[in-house]
């Protein structure tokens, strides 16, 4: 699980072009949106693409994203339980 969390941090930094952020800056329970990393709605769509492309998870209901993308911790837990690749 720790390896997956680090992998997710790297993917988020790279895919979302978070230029001044390092993986050390992202705590597992930091909110990804709002006061945390400050991601926006387009970033949320990119996270959905990451789930699909890298872990074979298709989100049928985008509203699910709200709980899945709360933090690295929640993302990693969801991916571990649902990944197909």
């Amino acid at each position: 699980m720790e390896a997956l969390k680090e992998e997710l941090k790297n993917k988020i930094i790279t895919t979302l072009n978070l230029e001044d952020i390092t993986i050390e800056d992202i705590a597992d329970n930091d909110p990804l949106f709002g006061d945390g990393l400050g991601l926006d709605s387009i970033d949320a769509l990119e996270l959905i693409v990451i789930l699909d492309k890298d872990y074979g998870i298709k989100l049928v209901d985008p509203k699910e994203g709200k709980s899945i993308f709360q933090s690295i911790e929640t993302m990693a837990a969801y991916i571990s339980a649902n990944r197909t690749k």
Partner: protein
Amino acid sequence: MTQNKTNIQSYIKIENNEIVLNGTSVFKIEPTDFADFAKQAYRNFEMQYPKFFKMDALSKLAFLGSELLLSPITSTEQENNIALVLANKSSSLDTDVKYQESISDKDNYFPSPAVFVYTLPNICLGEISIRHQLKSENSFFIFDAFNSEFLFNYSGILLNTNKADSVLCGWVEFYNDKYKAFLCIISKEENEKYINETINTLYNK
């Protein structure tokens, strides 16, 4: 009042790894690609706007130019009615091609929303407006070549009809890592510094 001459207040040119502001080179680096040039320029001027890194190349080019021209004006509390009138030749083709490549393989079909949102040239106007809190007129035009007469006439209409107090107009062209930006601010007030200049003479300097 009829706007029959160009009252240029300030201008900027960005090309060949260099930024020239009001005739003075303010940033120049060794030849590199645009992504690196843009990043170095952003850091050099300490722009403090992380969203910059999410923009496509055309928006970064327009952002860099407008930032140096508009920041001295929009950093005050006062609301500004500065219209934006930009043009280029390649529209958003550079990003369009990247996006098309991401959807060309049916077996590897993962279109990027972050790329898709830049598949229109006028998105760069939105980026500038958001950054400087402008709620003004804005338009983006596509021409085969730089068309100073059109920019002058269109900006003049905006000024003469009081649609804007000043206009940021110019050319922002980016395709396949070739780029050129020329932006200027024009208004009704005369500026003795550029009294004998026109959009065309400054563009060609």
